[in-house]
């Protein structure tokens, strides 16, 4: 068995790397990945959970995002570029997820497309914002989250989502207006109930 592994190691430099740290030629060792993961995993999960409306889907997409990130990592990227790259992978996975059941663009996905009620409840119970966000389209949630929760600039959002900067400005303006209206309505309704 060892002989076979050695033979593959000779043919494929990375073949024997499983369970050990990566070779000198690779881009991120397990320690660097650990610290990058600690800094980015929770914000990325929050982004995925809020945009998709499902905690379990966010768990799956988070894992797949990091796997793709590690397999496709490029040389010469700083921390911020890596973070944007990771969010881009996650956004593409989200888009693919929305496209899978019906061939629709992200803009056409209905507001109610929150597949996992059990996990949505888990998220929503933590904050009053959940029900308000549930009334927004996934694309609106995505833009609002990136702009105001993550504090990304329009250019960074363009890099992550693949949209044009001018479109982002307009979409964000509309989404913000809609979100503010929903939040005010909810605040009024809560006030009346009290």
């Amino acid at each position, binding site marked *: 068995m060892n002989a076979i592994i050695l033979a593959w190691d000779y043919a494929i430099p990375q073949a024997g790397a499983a369970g050990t740290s990566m070779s000198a030629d690779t881009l991120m060792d397990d320690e660097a990945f650990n610290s990058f993961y600690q800094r980015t995993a929770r914000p990325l999960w929050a982004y995925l959970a809020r945009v998709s409306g499902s905690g379990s889907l966010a768990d799956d997409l988070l894992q797949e995002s990091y796997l793709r990130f590690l397999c496709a990592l490029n040389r010469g990227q700083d921390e911020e570029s890596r973070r944007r790259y990771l969010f881009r992978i996650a956004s593409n996975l989200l888009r693919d997820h929305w496209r899978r059941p019906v061939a629709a663009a992200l803009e056409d996905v209905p507001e109610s497309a929150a597949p996992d009620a059990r996990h949505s409840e888990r998220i929503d119970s933590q904050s009053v*914002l959940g029900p308000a966000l549930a009334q927004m389209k996934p694309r609106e949630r995505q833009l609002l989250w990136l702009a105001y929760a993550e504090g990304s600039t329009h250019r960074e959002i363009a890099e992550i989502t693949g949209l044009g900067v001018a479109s982002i400005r307009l979409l964000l303006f509309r989404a913000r207006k809609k979100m503010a209206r929903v939040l005010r309505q909810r605040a009024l309704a809560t006030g009346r109930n009290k």
Partner: protein
Amino acid sequence: MKYFCSYQEKLVSELRQGRPHEMWDETLRSHIARCRSCNDLLLVSEALQQDRSEMVKSAQVASPGTLWWQAQVRMRNGAMQRVTRPIALVEKFALASLISVLLAGFAWKRSELLGWLMGVAAPSAHPAALAAPSLIDGWATLLMAAGLGTVAIFAGLAVYLLREKE
């Protein structure tokens, strides 16, 4: 339609710094009270930032070690696929060549081959067909074609490997 207010840049900067409202510029604060667009921006930003911090605190994510290990396995499988891809391609090409040579040989020497087969089936009716000297020539041609096919396969493989190396 007006999408932006001139104060929004200043407001965004204050929001990013995270200072309390009391420390903001008085003109900005009085503007926000009057401007609907800036008011929307403030309301949405603060709600989302608060939600983010709650979500980040409560998030339960998988262990990075498991992900690291899974990525290594995926990369290893990918590398193995890359190595075995040329072999699979050559196998397919060789099979296709063999089938082509056999079909071409059959089409070329069809009448002799059918005659020989009928001779085998009923030797008394076609005694001459069994000898079939022309068929022997046909087999020689077939062998030569197969040899040429083999050379072509190896040449194709050599070209492919050279291009891969480049």
